[in-house]
Each structure stands twice: as structure tokens, then as C-alpha cells.
């Protein structure tokens, strides 16, 4: 049985992942903003086999509460083996271009809050000399594209942060897993037209849990995105700037 904290637990990807944990009998704390929905999810996970499922109200942008929230979660669980950071918002690029205060908000939600949470969690796991930190990034962080570079910037910042943190924690027996999903059919992407590249949250969830089991460092989900992003990263800049991706 693993003791697991999920931040942004109302996310569709996070919930699907929590169901995989629950079926294995893990103990869970679910942190997020929508407390009513969190307790619905907690009840569901208990019936599905979770050893426990507690809820914790947390707005990721409330930085001052990070320390106490993580303390509370650890108390509930009697320790911490895995933390999954899943919250995020899909920034409206054109609004962010017109008004930088909106961009700043997006960067806070998608990057700075994640770094703050990771800092608190890393220090604890370093001290206990065990554990895994899992963060949901995105393929959008692999290259800045005109259509969503504010969101992409945040995910890129998280990726670099994770890379450094991973190296820092390596000798302390703590793993940092960065998950880079491609297109996933969730409320975040409800407005998008879906095609053959789209995956369901259930599949992403299975891949996340499998990566945790083998203490992987970075995964693209589904894995074909590794190839797509390899190609996108290798497009020469003079061509890339004309592509309007």
C-alpha cells in the first residue's frame, strides 16, 4: 500500500489515475478547490478499494498554505510515498497577449505554484530519503508555439525545474517523474475538435502508474508523442517561425 497525495485531484487525468491507485488499495489524500466534488471522488475511490481517501481544500495559487496543506496530508496518511501534481489551466493565448496580468496568473497556476509545492515536498522527501514526485507537464512545453506559448512557457519552466530537482534528489533515493501528455479528452480541452491523436484519461492514468512503478524520469503519454515531439523539436528555426503552429 502506497501513501499518495494528489494535488488538483478533480482533474480528469488525476481522477482516472486515482482510480488505478484505489484498485490497488493505496491510501489517498485528494487536494483541490472544489470540495464538494472532492468528496464525491473520495467516496467513489473508497468503494473502488482505496485504503483511505481524505479530502483537503487547497487552491494551488494560495502559496502561503502549501506547507500546512502538505503537513496535513502527511498526517492523514501517516507518511508520504508519492505526490502527484496535476492541477492546471489551459491559458487563453490571445487574452494573455493583450493583458500581461492574465499571463502572470497563468504562469502562477501552471508553473510557480507547482515549483512552490515541489519545493516543500522535495525537502520532506529528501529528509525521509524516499519517495516519488510526479508532475503533469505537457508536450506544449517542448517548443514555444504562437498558438499557446504562455501555457508552453509554464510547462517548460516546470520541466527544467524538475530536471534540476531530479538531479538534486537522485542521491537521496527520491525520483521525480515528469509526465508529458499529448492531446487528452478532458474538460480542459472540451472546446477542441477531437481526432485520432486524442487519448482518453484512462489510458494516460495507466501509463502514469506504470511509469511510477518503474521510477521513470520523463514520459510522453501516449508514447508516440515522443516521436511527434522529436520531429517538432528538430524543425529548423527558419522554417518553424513560418509554420504558425
Amino acid at each position, binding site marked *: 500500500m502506497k501513501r499518495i497525495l494528489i494535488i488538483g485531484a478533480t482533474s480528469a487525468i488525476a481522477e482516472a489515475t486515482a482510480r488505478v491507485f484505489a484498485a490497488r488499495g493505496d491510501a489517498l489524500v485528494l487536494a483541490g478547490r472544489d470540495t464538494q466534488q472532492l468528496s464525491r471522488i473520495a*467516496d467513489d475511490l473508497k468503494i*473502488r478499494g482505496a485504503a483511505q481517501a481524505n479530502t483537503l481544500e487547497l487552491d494551488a495559487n494560495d502559496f502561503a498554505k502549501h506547507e500546512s496543506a502538505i503537513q496535513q496530508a502527511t498526517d492523514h496518511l501517516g507518511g508520504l510515498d508519492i505526490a502527484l501534481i496535476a492541477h492546471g489551466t489551459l491559458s487563453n493565448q490571445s487574452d494573455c497577449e493583450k493583458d500581461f496580468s492574465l499571463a502572470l496568473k497563468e504562469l502562477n497556476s501552471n508553473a510557480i505554484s507547482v515549483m512552490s509545492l515541489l519545493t516543500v515536498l522535495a525537502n520532506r522527501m529528501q529528509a525521509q530519503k524516499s519517495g516519488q514526485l510526479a508532475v503533469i507537464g505537457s508536450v506544449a512545453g517542448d517548443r514555444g508555439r504562437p498558438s499557446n506559448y504562455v501555457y508552453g512557457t509554464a510547462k517548460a519552466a516546470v520541466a527544467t525545474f524538475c530536471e534540476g530537482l531530479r538531479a538534486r534528489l537522485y542521491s537521496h533515493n527520491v525520483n521525480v517523474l515528469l509526465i508529458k501528455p499529448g492531446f487528452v479528452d478532458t474538460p480542459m480541452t472540451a472546446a477542441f475538435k477531437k481526432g485520432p491523436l486524442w487519448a482518453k484519461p484512462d489510458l494516460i492514468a495507466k501509463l502514469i502508474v506504470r511509469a511510477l512503478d518503474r521510477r521513470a524520469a520523463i514520459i510522453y503519454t501516449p508514447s508516440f508523442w515522443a516521436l511527434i515531439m522529436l520531429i517538432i523539436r528538430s524543425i529548423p528555426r527558419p522554417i518553424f517561425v513560418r509554420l504558425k503552429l
Partner: protein
Amino acid sequence: MNLHGWGRYPIVDAQVTQVQREASALQLLENAQSKQQVLTPRGLGRSYGDSSLGDHVIDFSLQNRLINFNQESGLLECEAGTSLRDILNVFIPKGWFLPVTPGTQFVTVGGAIASDVHGKNHHLDGSFSQYIESFRILTGTNEVLECSADQRPDLFRATCGGMGLTGLILTAKLRLRPIKSSDILCRSIRAENLEQLIALFDEHVDSPYSVAWIDCLKGGAHLGRSILMLGEHAEDGPLQVAGDAGLTIPKLFPGELLNHTTISAFNTLYYHRSPKTMAAQRMSYRPYFYPLDSLNDWNRMYGRKGFVQYQFMIPKTSGANSMRKIIEAIAASGKGSFLAVLKTFGPGNNNDLSFPGEGWTLALDFRFDDGVLELLDRLDEMVLDVGGRVYLTKDARLKAQSFRRAYPNWEKFEATRARYGAHGRFASAQSLRLGLL
């Protein structure tokens, strides 16, 4: 986006909104009212025709949380988008099974209530809604109402079998059935013709599950040549969830292959098992209840044009001969699938539009081809003339006047819809065709 039912006919351009939280369902309903949008609820889209199609479709398949479970009584409360597969996966290991199950696990609880689905045990156990203790529904009056056979019985009877036309079902309480094993003991018996088959059904009326595969091409003395398959839950053995399907049907599949597959399956069973009665075989619940679920997207087998499934029932009082005449008409047309599924129904319930009633039901596929619609209109007449009806969840083409003849309680249904503000708020491509606005 383009949306269709399991038969891939018809295809409509729909705006689809997923609901994941109850609060957003309420909001959606209020927004729709201000924009004068008519809503169509949808589960996993396993109805064959246009029951879950419309301009504004509300997809419940992600509203799928388990809310409460009583390990003593087996009463499960869950959200309407919970799939039957999910329920089996969680509760089989705990010793519980569905009280009634259709021939696929990829159906939501909301969809199962809306179609009041039946299984191979209808002759003894009735249909799905008879195991619904209560449900909560969001009605056109913008309120969430709790409903059961005793509480707002009018709304309960209109909603069960009511094809999503009374409101959005949000949650339901379902009584599961205790089992000792996930295995099924299955026995198949050959019948040389329809009369023999019906006699066999009567003889084995105590068998918990029964269904027959019937050859729809044979006429004359061999009309109704079939295999009756009986089943019961094993009393011992594992409580084990069956693994997932592997095979996926490619996008464009030559239409004839499904017929070939079923023909060879039938022939293998029929000719190459010499004894008339086979000894009981033990198998997992999955191949027994959900044989087609192991082929993902098998509906693609009929190719681009899609297909319609036709399922009708004939009351017992009209006699087996009326069933014989309809099968003769199907065989003569040469348009139906080779195989059809026949089973006996026990007494119906008092829901306004539920399909089952004491008698026999036959279901078969028709590839969407020239002349099929005309043929089905003719079959409708034959079915209606002997007091039978057609199953709405399979339908894509029934005419409004035939619907009214088949379901004489439609006026009661409409009156209940009016009382709960459903008109102009909930409809589907099917309901508009049937005159339910």
C-alpha cells in the same frame, strides 16, 4: 461534430457537451433554457438508431462515480454515467453481479434505465428498472427530483423506458444480485424448427438465463432452426473479472464478413456437435453475456452505410404462428442477417413505454440498403396487427403513427412529460420523428 448510434445510421451534426459534475448539469440546463436549446441525454451511445442523437447532446459517460455501496444488501448508488462494465469490474470480486444485463457491458446506468433494458433472464426477473430503488432526475422545471415506484410514481414510470425524454437522470440506486462465482454453466440444445424451440423454452422456463440463436434463412419445415442456450451462475469457482478485449475492427470493413462470421459460428455449433443436447459447459460470464464485446467496434463490419437493428415482440396470446409468419417474410426478403436472437419475455411492467411484455422477441440486423426501409414498414404492420411492438432503443425509422399503435400509453407519457416541464426541453432525433416534441 458528427454523431451516430451503434448502427452508424443515421449520422447527425451535434454539439456535444460532457458533464462531469452535477453542478455543471444544472448550469447547462439553465443555459439551454435561456438559449432555447433542446437537450438530448446520451450515455455510451449503444442504442442503435437515433435515440441519443439531437442538436445539443449531453454526454454523461464521464459522470461515473460510485456514491455508496451496502455490502449487506447489495444496494449500489452511483452516478448515471457509470458503465455496467465498471460495476462488474468493481463488484464481481466482492460477490455481486448485475440483476439484469443487456448483451454488452458498454452501457451506462442512465441509458439502461432510459431504455428499461432486458437480459436473458427477463422471463423470470423482468427488466432493469425493476431493480432501481430510486433515482434522481433533473427535470425541465430546473429541479432535481427524487423518484421511485412510490415517490412520484408517474415520473418513475415515464422515465424508465422513457428514452431520456423526461429529464437528465443524475444518480440511481441499483440492487445488485449476489453470486458465488463469476462462472456461468451453459448448456445448448438444438431445435429443428420454431415450434420445437418454443416448446423447449417452455420446458426450460426455470433456467435463469435463456436465449436462442435462430437461422433466419431457412424456410419451410426447418423454419426456426435454432440453438437454445441456457445458463446459470455456477455455485462454486472464482470471483474473477474477465480481461479486456483485444481485437479492433478496422475502419472500413467489407459488410459481408459479419454474416460469414456468424454463419460459421452457428454452423460449428449446429452441425459439428452431434448430440442434440450438450453437457453443461463452464465459462466466464463474459463470453456468455457479452460475446460481441471481444470485438471492439464490430458495428463497423457493416461498412460505410451502417445498419439498422430490428427488434420486435409478439404477445404470447397471438400465438407462435404469428412469429412464424414474420420470420417467413424476413427469410423471403433475403435482406436480414443470417442469424437472429430470439427469447421469451415474462410479464411486462407498468412503465409507460417499456418494451418487454409476455411473449417472444426477435432481434436481427439489416444492412442499410435499398428497400430495407420499405421492408421494415411492412414488418411493422405485421407486428402491430398481432398486438406486438418494436423496441425504441434499436429503432432509427419507425413512423409516428406506428409508434402510437405500438405504445398506447404514449398519451399518458406525454401528460407526465408536460407535468414535469419536459416539452421543448428534452427531445431526440427519434422523439421528434415519433411526434414526441
